[in-house]
């Protein structure tokens, strides 16, 4: 924040910078701060307070069914959750779904992005068609998948041997969840990557091709390295999204056969179990995990957000 402010200050305002006394400029800056203060305060209140409140809840024994036994219990809820096999199972499922779906989406998304970028005829139509899955409400799409895999009603279930009910077994169910996730969000990945493709100068590609580089060499040696910022940004967005997966699992299995994700298990404890303490603890842990993912992407891998491209 401070850095941005000082750099903005350093840019001389053309024609005025030298003439206007600095006291005037300072008062203008104060006015600017005051003008955006109300918005900043509201933002802090609506985003900051719920976070603080769930941290406070996570330090209490707070079960709506036992209002009389509410008490501050320190980090007991954290030991309970971190010592629970249900939580770690949900964590493993979430990581599995995140890693597999994001990896597949990256490859598929890249192919689709290249197709969309290079299409000459009917470019608008191709792009619109690719975006359809992303435009469908996730819950509606998830119901579509659910019925498709339900024996007796589904066209996909009919392809399986008689009596198979894939949504009632652990690994087939996770496979279907991943499939639904990939189908749904690959277009989003493709869109982000297509924006990255636009960063690659045509001249460089033409020069490489004149020097005898094959299409594959041009892709791996020129396109990919130049696209790296866009790829990392796309991966960051999708990883954060996938880690918080809720709606697909809620509709497809609702966590049966150990297919809960961390968000779903938090929901079950908070809303189904009425246990505000344990549920909030899980929410805080999810928040920390998401923060960690973002930190790794930004600090370790050097992802930059599109508007911070001045590094």
């Amino acid at each position, binding site marked *: 924040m401070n850095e941005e402010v000082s750099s903005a200050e350093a840019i001389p305002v053309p024609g005025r910078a030298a003439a206007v006394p600095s006291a005037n400029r300072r008062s203008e800056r104060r006015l600017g701060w005051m003008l955006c203060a109300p918005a900043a305060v509201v933002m802090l209140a609506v985003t900051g307070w719920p976070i603080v409140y769930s941290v406070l809840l996570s330090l209490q024994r707070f079960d709506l069914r*036992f209002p009389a036994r509410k008490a501050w219990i320190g980090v007991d809820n954290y030991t309970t959750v971190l010592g629970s096999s249900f939580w770690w199972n949900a964590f493993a499922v979430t990581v599995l779904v995140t890693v597999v779906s994001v990896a597949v989406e990256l490859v598929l998304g890249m192919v689709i992005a290249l197709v969309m970028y290079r299409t000459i005829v009917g470019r608008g139509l191709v792009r619109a068609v690719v975006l359809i899955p992303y435009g469908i409400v996730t819950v509606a799409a998830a119901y579509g998948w659910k019925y498709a895999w339900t024996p007796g009603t589904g066209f996909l279930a009919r392809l399986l041997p008689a009596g198979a009910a894939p949504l009632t077994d652990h690994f087939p169910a996770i496979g279907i969840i991943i499939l639904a996730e990939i189908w749904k969000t690959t277009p989003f990945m493709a869109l982000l990557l297509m924006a990255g493709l636009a960063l690659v100068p045509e001249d460089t590609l033409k020069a490489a091709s004149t020097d005898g580089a094959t299409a594959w060499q041009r892709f791996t040696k020129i396109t990919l390295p130049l696209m790296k910022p866009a790829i990392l940004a796309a991966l960051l967005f999708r990883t954060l999204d996938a880690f918080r997966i809720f709606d697909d699992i809620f509709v497809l299995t609702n966590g049966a056969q150990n297919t809960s994700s961390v968000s779903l298990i938090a929901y079950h404890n908070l809303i189904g179990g009425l246990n505000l303490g344990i549920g909030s603890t899980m929410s805080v842990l999810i928040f920390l995990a998401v923060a960690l993912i973002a930190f790794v992407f930004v600090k370790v891998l050097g992802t930059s957000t599109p508007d911070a491209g001045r590094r």
Partner: protein
Amino acid sequence: MGRALSPAGAPAGRRAMAALTAVLTAGLAAACASGASGTRVVNLYNAPQESIGAIAGRCNREAHGRYRIVVNTLPRGADDQREQLVRRLAARDSGLDVLGLDVTWTAELAEAGWIREWTGRYAQEASKGTLPGPLSTATWQGRLYAAPYNTNVQLLWYRSDLMPDPPSTWAGLIQASERLAAEGKPHYGEVTGAQFEGLVVWFNSLVASAGGRILSPDGRRVELGPSALTALRTMRRFARSKAADPSISNTKEDDARLAVESGRGAYEINWPFVYASMATLQPKLLKKFKWAPYPGITGPGRAPLGGANFAVSRYSAKPDAAFQAALCLRDPESQRTAAIQDGLPPAVESVYWAPGMAKAYPMRQAILDSLKTAAARPMTPTYQNVSTVSAVRLSPPKSIDPPRTLRSLRGLIEDALQSKGVLP
């Protein structure tokens, strides 16, 4: 955005606003009008039931303006029903008056202070003539928190052409299945073995049949003595015998019904709704479709007790009207309608002998007998947790490892009682 600022856009926006205001005011006026005319609107939230509108209609006519029941239908799944009710009660929603509750929710809602205790005249009327089993499901710590509406028990339903003498024990059922298998006849016995509440219902009745309990009667301690070990051994043996359907670990009540109707299963442990279904869908099999008491360990067992009760919300603004409405909704005539139209067994004994019941309930004597020994599920505010974690540990039944499963169950249920339990 640009359009809204144009001269033409502004009046259009204002007109829309005016229309919205008019609609809102009309709604308010309607709400006030019903209050002014003296008719108190009582909002009933009930599980889907076809004839509930007719039942409420009769009550509204007989109330002569003292109250007017408006029927609101909850989702079909029991978990979804509970979720909607508790979420609104936790938010102190005054739009709920009478609540249709599953028998396992009484302790939870009473302990949280979300439903009112029934006292005096209302309590007297709610318990008059009511069978003791159903009444106990509406009671928590010696106080009445709901009025029993209907009850239910599971029975053994069997094909008399395959099993002329129905066994009275689980061991007997396994033997009968082995004999049928050797003769090359349908031999599957259908039980609710899927990972859901029904699996816990099965376990609970086996523990009770072996003479034990899952929880102490006050719901504060885990018991699960040697009888629980017997129950777990019985479940494991059944699931690994010729009696077990290969899809036992996916079988819920409706799958069990379908298996017997299709001729795949020789018998099933199920609620009485299977009789009406058989009469409609397989009238040819109906003559051979008989019932017997719930099987036990050494003799007849203790059947699971189900049903629904009516409670009055703490946040209802008109509790007196709500209590009166609830009493009418569960009076003998309402229970008779629910029994004959919707197949819900009455909670008041006299209704079993009312006109029309002989045809709809040929098994009524068996139901009444089973109700005398039926085993209610553990009474505890944390039943939801106890049930969920138990179902996870008991599934699939053929993988039960009695002493180890018991140790793990005990730990999980103890944590659930301390609200330390984590739900999967």
